């Protein structure tokens, strides 16, 4: 930038001398300044200025640095819907199932679009993006090479078409052409990764039925997970991978590695170990990934704890002998296997950690998760020593994590579980502050894991915190980060009850309705009982009555929800307290319709409200209703009615009838 200016300056300077001669007459008064018209930028010391002008050097930065700096001024908006949805209350999800449905449908739409673009590349040739965005251009999904050649085989491998690749390989062998070692290894990798099935695509999914899963897979099913189990594949006896492997003239360690890892991934553990002994017999050495796979398979091939540990140590020693350097995943697999070694874990886990430190491998969140699992058994009550987790959190404070192991995502929910079990609020806050550091929120996992984490955090808060703080957190995390389940709402109701903030119940009811939990009868009944338990101030009573009417309309709207005696009486009581006589009367009729019997207290209450609002006709009707139910309290009611109300003669006669009736029956 300075260079062209200097050039201009030079130009002028060269003419400057020429100009000076002509100009003195006209410009003499202007002083020396004007002799050189344009000066160079910066480097000259002017005669008239006192100090030199120092132009600092220009800073340079990456192309996104400015945008990143501006983005750092912005934080999360607690009322906003998740960013992938439209910012409209009608169009954004309100319950967790809606959230899943909407995000899956978005993904499905995207996949459909990708499918169209990739399958019709001739319509999508124009490139609007500047600079070029490769992932938006159509990618090749169809095979171009049809002839039997190694190129075609390589193409099928890159396009992940497993069965086509196997076919091509067989054809090549039949034709007598030799396939290069590298291609064969890649083919084996492909087959073992996908367990000899084509990967599920946008077309018809080839779902393996779960009944074929062997016993081994059944044992290894993780607790409480969902439909992913149906897609779990099982390693079939003598499938293409094994067949091709056996046909190979010389097998090198990479082929063995592919087979072993595939077997471990798809459940054939003992086979994996036998193949490993094969490998040892052939005096080959395995690589670190193979060892990781074998270590993770140890608990499935041995039953007793010490046998398992012995096998692990044996594998580690062999690793040492073969001069294979362990990595983070090795130690994580050791710890994961130790989790299933019972009491041995507490002795050996710290040793493993020390080994890690000695090798200079920084532990990841998965490591910490395994350690927590070892030392804090779930469900165990009683004073748990929280020292370990305290130390761990103090050490990890302020650290920013990246995902280095797929198991990292379980750390935060297990840590929160421990906090919940030990009812330690400070610890919970510490864990949450760790989540809020930088990008750590990404390590909370998928939406299910996230909901588990926030559910536990919220229960802890409801249990231990003051209601104002609970409400503050409620507005912060619900529903933008977490859709509470009925248990969570129940915890919140309890917290409101404990701190005496029952006046907030109508707003909570609105939230329950939005979340779709208004079809859970026990939750609604609990809400009603909390509202009806005590008398409150008139405005609160009014809001409760409105809420009760809303509950009634919900019950009426759904055929699956059944009224119970308690819920009916609660609603009636609430309406009575707000002096809504007509609606209360409708409720009593509803009692009759649903074959439930109102209690004596309720009827007395009704009578007194009738009296205060002066509706004698109602009182008579009430006594008639009570008689229809054959309640023992009928004569008492009749007597009170006669005594306290201004009645017509007709009404009096009706009432006196009831006064007498039961006596007749007892006779």
């Amino acid at each position, binding site marked *: 930038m300075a260079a062209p200016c200097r050039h201009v300056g030079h130009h002028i300077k060269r003419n400057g001398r020429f100009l000076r001669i002509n100009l003195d007459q006209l410009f003499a008064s202007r002083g020396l300044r004007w002799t050189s018209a344009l000066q160079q930028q910066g480097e000259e010391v002017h005669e008239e200025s006192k*100090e030199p002008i120092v132009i600092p050097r220009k800073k340079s930065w990456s192309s996104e640095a400015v945008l990143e700096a501006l983005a750092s001024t912005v934080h999360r908006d607690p*009322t906003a819907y998740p960013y992938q949805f439209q910012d409209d209350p009608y169009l954004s999800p309100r319950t967790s199932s809606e959230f899943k449905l909407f995000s899956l449908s978005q993904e499905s739409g995207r996949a459909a679009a990708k499918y169209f673009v990739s399958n019709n590349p001739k319509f999508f040739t124009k490139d609007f993006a500047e600079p070029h965005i490769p992932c938006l251009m159509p990618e090749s999904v169809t095979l171009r090479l049809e002839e039997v050649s190694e190129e075609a085989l390589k193409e099928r491998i890159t396009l992940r078409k497993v069965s086509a690749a196997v076919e091509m390989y067989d054809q090549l062998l039949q034709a007598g052409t030799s396939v290069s070692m590298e291609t064969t290894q890649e083919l084996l990798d492909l087959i073992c990764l996908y367990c000899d099935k084509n990967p599920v695509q946008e077309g018809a999914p080839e779902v393996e039925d779960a009944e074929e899963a062997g016993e081994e897979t059944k044992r290894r099913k993780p607790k409480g997970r969902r439909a992913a189990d149906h897609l779990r594949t099982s390693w079939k006896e003598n499938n293409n991978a094994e067949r091709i492997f056996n046909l190979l003239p010389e097998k090198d360690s990479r082929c063995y590695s592919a087979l072993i890892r595939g077997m471990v991934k798809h459940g054939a553990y003992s086979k994996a170990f036998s193949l490993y002994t094969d490998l040892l017999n052939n005096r080959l050495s395995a690589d670190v990934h193979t060892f990781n796979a074998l270590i993770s398979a140890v608990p499935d091939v041995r039953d007793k704890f010490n046998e398992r540990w012995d096998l692990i140590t044996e594998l580690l020693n062999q690793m040492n002998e073969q001069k294979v350097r362990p990595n983070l995943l090795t130690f994580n697999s050791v710890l994961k296997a130790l989790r299933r070694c019972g009491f041995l874990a507490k002795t050996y886990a710290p040793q493993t950690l020390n080994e890690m430190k000695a090798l200079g491998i920084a532990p990841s969140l998965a490591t910490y998760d395994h350690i927590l699992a070892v030392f804090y058994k779930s469900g165990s009550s009683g004073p748990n020593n929280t020292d370990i987790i305290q130390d761990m959190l103090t050490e990890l404070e302020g650290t920013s994590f990246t995902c280095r192991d797929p198991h990292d995502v379980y750390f935060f929910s297990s840590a929160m579980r421990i906090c919940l079990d030990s009812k330690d609020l400070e610890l919970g806050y510490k864990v949450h502050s760790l989540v809020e550091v930088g990008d750590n929120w990404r390590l909370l996992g998928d939406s299910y894991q996230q909901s588990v984490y926030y559910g536990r955090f919220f229960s802890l808060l409801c249990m231990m915190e003051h209601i104002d703080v609970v409400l503050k957190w409620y507005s912060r995390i619900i529903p933008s980060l977490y859709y509470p389940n009925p248990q969570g709402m129940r915890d919140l109701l309890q917290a409101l009850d404990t701190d005496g903030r029952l006046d907030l119940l109508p707003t909570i009811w609105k939230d329950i309705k939005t979340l779709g939990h208004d079809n859970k009868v026990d939750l609604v009944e609990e809400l009603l009982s909390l509202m009806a338990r005590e008398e409150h101030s008139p405005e609160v009573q009014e809001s409760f009555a409105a809420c009760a009417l809303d509950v009634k309309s919900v019950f009426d709207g759904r055929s699956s929800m059944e009224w119970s005696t308690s819920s009916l009486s609660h609603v009636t009581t609430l309406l009575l307290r707000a002096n809504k006589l007509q609606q209360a009367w409708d409720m009593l009729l509803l009692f009759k319709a649903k074959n439930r019997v109102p209690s004596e207290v309720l009827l007395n209450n009704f009578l007194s409200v009738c009296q205060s609002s002066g509706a004698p006709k109602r009182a008579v009707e009430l006594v008639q209703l009570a008689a229809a139910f054959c309640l023992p309290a009928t004569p008492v009611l009749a007597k009170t009615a006669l005594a306290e109300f201004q009645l017509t003669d007709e009404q009096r006669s009706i009432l006196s009838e009831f006064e007498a009736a039961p006596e007749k029956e007892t006779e």
Partner: protein
Amino acid sequence: MASLTRNVFLFLGRTNVSGLGIKEITNRVTYATALFANSTSGNKGLPDRGGRGSVGRRPRREPGEPRTEKMPLDQDWTSVYPSATSFKSNAVPLPVRMGYPVKRGVPPEKKGNLELLKIPNFLHLTPAAIKKHCEALKPFCTEWPSALDTDAKCDEHFPIKVESTDYVCAGPSVRNPSARIVHLKVKLSRFNLDDHARKKMLKLVGERYCKDSDILSITTDSCPLRQQNYEYAKYLLTVLYHESWKIEAWEAEKTAADMEEYSWEDSLSQKNMLDTLLRMKVAGEGEDAEVRKQLLEREDVQDYKDSVVRLKNEGASESSMLQYKEAVRKVFNV
């Protein structure tokens, strides 16, 4: 029943395709019959908008309340509107109204208001947001040289000012063709120009010169890249300067009509004045030329000259007319 009608419709449609003349009429007829049949087929096909419908149908989804209800008063607005987005009525907690008022009423409310969506809004650039942005951008800046503390000093050391704009847009392409435009501004007084050079420069430059502020501004956008436009602007400046100093042969043919300002010497006004004065002084004093020169050197004639020059150059204003009047009176001793 509905399906039967549909089939009938199709059948009718097909038979009428051949008859071009009556096609339109019959098509309308078929359309009408189909519609009529559908409406009599009962509620099964058509969704019932208003009512609840029978048991087992999904209840109508409530529109939901806007999220402004949940916004606390002390929220961080810069996080709600971090970047330029269109107006979202459920995110802005202000009761704005916009549009032509309904008959005998008020402008429509913000919910579903297209007028509010059409106009640009600066909700993402509140003073708080700008403050935060400035703080975040400070590390990218170097410090200002301490010697340049006044505007005058800046002008003196850096007389040429170059301006160009960068654009940021979230779209398929980050390029913006307007980013190539370069404006170069410089004060003409900083140049070494004599009278001729200045006039020639002004003639060459034309509209790019602003007389009031004495700034020459060159805007270049003919090249596709900003660097090219910048160099072209500098080249133009250099060339203008040198060209204005050169005196071409054909410049001698400059006529009075080309002159930028009026000069009294050898003009009609001077001739008229001198003739008038000569005729007034009847007593012949000598030769013509000498008398003229003497007359010219008289003070009132000089005043007259000044007033005429002023009138011609500056135009007729109150004060210039007065000056002319005074000068004329003095010359003719009126």
